């Protein structure tokens, strides 16, 4: 067991970590990610702050998940926590310096690192944002847009769920989404529910929230950044010879929406949820799908290094998918 647990992560440091952070950060920005995805500038910012060139002696190595190829949650959170605690630490060290006491080299390096981190002003990785879209007085309902960001452990790291919901007036008091005039506020029940159910694909979340009385779901979209394939994480079976500098970052997206006319899967690495169901459960879900009136689209685009592009194209040619690839 111990060996398996160890095998799940790999440790990076020094030049290897620098190359890893730089490659991952630039691939995130190359992916032309719209607002369905986690903010690419925020995600890229975290990676830049983990690089040794940013830390300059103020940090050690980094553990990455072998399955997703992305940094462990602990390491990502450590950067954010460092940033949050930075003002106090900087103030205390400046005080010390003002009192004429010199700082040890390690403390000096940490101070400079925290100052840079303060300037970077990293936004939280986990975030829940609810916006009122409109109020329909005739239907006695309000329409909301919910954005939920999370850093999932595995297989994908950065994840964003975007929900378009309609809530009936009578339901406002049922403590799902509160509204006061034009202001909306997710209740603690809503927050807890989302955290519990937003673990899997959009269709499941659609089914669960669609079952809440007074709530009509228009769309649930899940978009992710990851997995990341690189020399350190390894490439999938069938990859035509991993060379130096090869890296591939996935941007999968799945969307369950009442606006869609038919199911469509353009994701060569994931099937549709309903394909895995059988017998009674399949019938049950098909009936729910019909009553909720949604369809599902799945798609996946990629950003890769130029040296990895031929290999990726070859890999994708098998399922005959039409995926967008950005090579840098």
């Amino acid at each position, binding site marked *: 067991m111990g060996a398996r647990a160890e095998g799940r992560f790999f440790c990076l440091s020094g030049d290897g970590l620098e190359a890893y952070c730089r490659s991952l950060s630039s691939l995130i920005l190359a992916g*032309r990610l*719209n607002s369905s995805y986690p*903010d690419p500038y925020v995600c890229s910012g975290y990676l830049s702050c983990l690089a040794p060139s940013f830390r300059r002696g103020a940090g050690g190595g980094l553990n990455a998940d072998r399955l997703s190829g992305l940094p462990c949650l602990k390491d990502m959170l450590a950067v954010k926590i460092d940033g949050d605690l930075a003002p106090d630490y900087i103030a205390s060290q400046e005080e010390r310096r003002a009192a004429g006491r010199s700082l040890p080299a390690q403390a000096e390096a940490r101070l400079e690192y925290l100052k840079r981190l303060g300037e970077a002003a990293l936004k939280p990785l986990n975030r829940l944002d609810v916006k*009122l879209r*409109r109020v329909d007085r005739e239907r006695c309902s309000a329409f909301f847009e919910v954005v939920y960001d999370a850093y999932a452990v595995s297989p994908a790291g950065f994840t964003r769920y975007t929900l378009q919901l309609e809530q009936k007036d009578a339901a406002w008091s049922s403590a799902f989404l509160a509204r006061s005039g034009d202001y909306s506020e997710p209740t603690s029940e809503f927050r807890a529910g989302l955290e519990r159910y937003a673990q899997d694909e959009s269709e499941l979340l659609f089914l669960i929230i669609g079952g809440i009385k007074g709530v009509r779901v228009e769309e649930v979209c899940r978009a992710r950044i990851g997995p990341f394939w690189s020399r350190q994480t390894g490439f999938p079976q069938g990859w035509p010879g991993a060379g130096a500098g090869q890296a591939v970052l996935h941007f999968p997206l799945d969307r369950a929406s009442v606006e*869609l006319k038919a199911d469509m899967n353009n994701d060569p690495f994931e099937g549709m949820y309903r394909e895995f169901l059988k017998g009674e459960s399949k019938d049950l879900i098909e009936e729910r799908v019909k009553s909720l009136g949604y369809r599902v689209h799945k798609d996946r685009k990629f950003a890769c290094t130029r040296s990895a592009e031929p290999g990726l194209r070859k890999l994708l040619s098998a399922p005959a998918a039409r995926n967008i690839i950005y090579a840098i």
Partner: protein
Amino acid sequence: MKSNLVAQGMVLDLVNQFSDTLAFYRELIQNSLDAGSNRIDVSLEYVLQPDGKGLAIMRVEDDGSGMDEDIIDNYLLVLFKSSKENDLTKIGKFGVGFLSVFAPKPSLVRVYTSKNMESWRVDFPNYRSYNKYRMPNPRDGTLVEVHKRVTPQEYAVLSERSLATVRYWCRHADTRIYFRDRSRNVPEQLVNEPFRLPGGESLRYAEEGTEVVMAFSPPEAERSGNKVVYTGEDRPFYGFYNRGLTLKEGRKVFIPGVEFKIKSRYLEHTITRDNVMEDANYYKAMDIVKRLASRELPKKLRAELEAVALRLSKAAAAGDIPGVRELEYEWERRKTFLKVLCGSLLSRFRHDLAEWKIIPAVSGEPASLDELKAAWKEHRPLIKAGSRVPAYFLANKPDALTAALGALGAPVVLESETCFYTEFIYWTGEAMTAVRASNLVLTEEEDPGKLGPAVAAFLKTLPLLGESCGGNYSCVYPARFVYENPSAEPQLFLFKKDPYGVGHRDEWYHRKGESGLCPVINCSHPFINTLAGLHASRPGFAAFLLLKSMLLHQEGSLHPDAASTYSNLSPKLERRLLKAAIGLDLAAEARNV
């Protein structure tokens, strides 16, 4: 046929309503924002055609959600139909924005877009027709190309205008916008600027769908050389934005003395794009601004004015004149809004303006109105004994005199040629007058050992003669007189309640009728030296001259600076004084013989 012509005429009108032919940048960027783009690229390129003429290609490319055939057919190509109507998270509402691409009279407009695994190219040779093509490969977002035939010279102008247009309308956009001119080697540049006011903001506020920055408006000033005169005119900046896109900017008083920018989901353009729609939502946005101005801004005003007053006081105490000049602007900048607060009874009551330590003082510590009033009560005799109107001290720099006042706990307000710091007192309905330091005098006890022998001897004689004039003159107090302005004409003597310390130059006059005033002699006055010289031969006469002068002022109750209408004392007093003086002279003569 007729209805078709009418429709075409209407479309042409809509195209022509865009007074700025490059307004399409704003409209396309707005669509890109609504499509959820994280990055928008605006670029230009100049392409030479086979016929030798040039073609400018203006591109706006985003990574938004794109369009499928349904959206193209039912929204992009249909006027007044918008999928974003009443959606507070979207900017576009009317369904006419795309028409703006025809305003620069392009030779072709081409749209590439993709959504739901469909990919399309739509060509518009003009605003009346289009051709739609299905494309083989999917893409991210939408790319709009506007082709226009121009000369190289026209292209250069077009490129610069394009950047200026994008910058004006989109510099505060929530999404990163990059501009690049591929043909003129203009490197890619980020158009966005932070959502801030030019001189920095005092208040930043955010709530769902709305962000506001507010500051106190810079004062209008006239400059002549180094001199600055604040005109008192208020022309605050305002800016309305939706998701950072400029709707309208200008100068107008919404709240006196306050400039602001508001980025709000509630704000939208009129269909003509030259103004903000003043509907119910607009008033919701303005209510936020007004609420902030009435609840939050006064607290900021106090904090900032107190900070400025402290810095001003410290600069004044350190004799840092340029520093004072610079900070005067900061104080003046907050004055109009201060006037608004002072003018409102409710505000005055709510904010306790009298407690605000916002009055710069030369001592280094600012004062509040309450402190000025308390100082007047305590030091009233120093200011104007007889006056019922409260007063405060005023000086333009620290000196021995202001230090003496400071030691007494009396604040000395900083005097400025350009900024009247105590003007707000009148706005609160209080009345206070200023006592300039130039009207004060500090009398410091003169060390008898440091006096010349002639002056010392003269001062000894004075009380001897003074005894003949009454108790007040039986003891005179030698002193050094210190004035704010060293070149001020010194007084020969003073009558003061306390012989040493700070007093009004006219204290004697203000205390007329009071008994027990002490005669204080200015030992360094040149006339005292003259009298001391005379005293060697005619001690009685020398003392007589000074005492008569003092008596004429005191007994005649004359203002010390007024031209005397009296030339003589009462005959009885004059006779008594003269008799004593002659006696002293005779005694001296006898001693000399």
